[in-house]
């Protein structure tokens, strides 16, 4: 699993539960190191050992932890870069949802060896969507749930999300847009980033 993904989980756990807790988790995972490097590749076995150690330590179901990780990735100022990259997807939430089809390609443009599962947005009726997450990265759909929820807040829209389980091997998330401009979203300046 790509270092960025491992590193994302590390960032979430360490900043939510503290560095000490993270070090304990990595001790239990017994990988021989405590920090994941964002730009290195790790085996699935290493990532799975870390994930089970996280699950044991936090005593919460993994899907829930992954969803919180997704929310953290968008809402925490520490990882502002990712939120900005996602906001490039569209000027409103619906446009953003449609841009998710391109997400794996966009990710690969930035980091050539980062492979994310294909995503497909199906618009069932205005304001009602299904996001189909192809297999390849277990738990990715749960992370996406957190991302979708946090991005809705970011745009200031109110949405209802529901993980609908697996259909033909792909996980399905239903997205219902209840109200746009429900709250004031966060601002996004195209050129605010210091280069």
């Amino acid at each position, binding site marked *: 699993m790509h270092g960025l993904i491992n590193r994302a989980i590390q960032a979430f756990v360490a900043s939510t539960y503290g560095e000490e807790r993270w070090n304990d988790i990595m001790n239990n995972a017994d990988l021989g190191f405590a920090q994941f490097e*964002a*730009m290195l590749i790790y085996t699935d076995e290493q990532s799975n050992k870390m994930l089970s150690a996280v699950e044991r330590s936090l005593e919460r179901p993994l899907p829930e932890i992954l969803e919180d990780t997704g929310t953290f990735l968008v809402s925490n100022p520490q990882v502002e870069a990712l939120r900005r990259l996602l906001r490039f997807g569209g000027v409103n939430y619906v446009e953003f949802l449609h841009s998710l089809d391109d997400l794996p390609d*966009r990710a690969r443009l*930035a*980091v050539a060896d980062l492979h994310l599962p294909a995503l497909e947005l199906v618009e069932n009726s205005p304001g009602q969507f299904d996001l189909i997450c192809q297999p390849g990265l277990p738990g990715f759909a749960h992370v996406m749930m957190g991302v979708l929820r946090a991005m809705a807040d970011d745009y200031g829209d109110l949405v209802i999300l529901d993980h609908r389980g697996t259909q033909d091997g792909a996980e399905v998330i239903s997205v219902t847009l209840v109200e746009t401009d429900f709250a004031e979203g966060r601002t996004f*300046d*195209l*050129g605010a980033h210091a280069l």
Partner: protein
Amino acid sequence: MMTADEMTGVIAQICPMYLVVDSAGLFRFAGPTLQKLRPDMTWKRKNFFDVFDLQRPRWVNSMDDLLKTAGAKLHLQFRESPQTSLKGVLVPLPDGQGALINLSFGISVLEAVRDYDLTSADFSPTDLTIEMLYLVEAKSAAMEASRQLNLRLQGAKIAAEEQAFTDTLTGLKNRRAMDHILERLIGSGTDFALMHVDLDFFKEVNDTLGHAAGDAVLQSVARVMVECTRHSDTVARVGGDEFVIIFEGVNEPKVLEALSKRLISNLEEPVPYGGQMCKISASAGTTLSVWNAPPIAAAAMLHQADLALYAAKRAGRSQHLFFEQGMQKDELQAATQGQS
């Protein structure tokens, strides 16, 4: 047939930075994004050449010239600050009605987006600007992550070097390695001799011929020392031009007497470097473990070898002396003399 307003409405959708100039070079229409760059300016009937400095092609000085550039790439910038650079292309309008010019930011887009607070609504949906901005940010973030990794790896490399036993310049053992070997020999009760060697005139080589010459000399010195000693002996570089040789299993001075002479004379062989000859020599002092009553202390033996070396230096350099009881350093001597 479309009216002029209908036509500019269509063009504004596709090219929000378009301009229409009449045959005299006066603006007739300007696209919405272009207008946003100079919100306080009235575009209508302003002269193209008053607003823009056309940098290329250089031969363009009038509206007639400008019309002749049709289809070619134009480089221009605003005359007033911020002097954003723009690229453009001109298409003449029929019946001598002037021309349509489409402008874009080119590579200056990064600053432009910041300077003018542009949003994605200011670009045509088919324009790749947003993708380019995305890519610049994504690559910056990825580069930053890589840079952090490089910094950490460099830190790890320095830490590893600190734990290493080898002197990277000469390939000899370093002081850490020497400490370990002394500890092992003393611990196992093995006899050994300890020779402290200090180069003479090395500083002169460094000062006159430079550090690179100095490094070449040190590498040559290392080779000579390894050649003059047995495989079971240890040669360590313990300072800039200081070396320690540990002779394992040696318990009498005789063999070392000859060896030290050969060593010093070999070290005096000039080392060629960059067309110059670097000449150095060496002084050395030696002590033997059998001269010390147990328990033997590595620090005490190093001190004895150091005193012998010091005496050799004082006796005129390029010499080797064995440690003798009563050897002292000058400052120590001076201090004790001062007391008495």
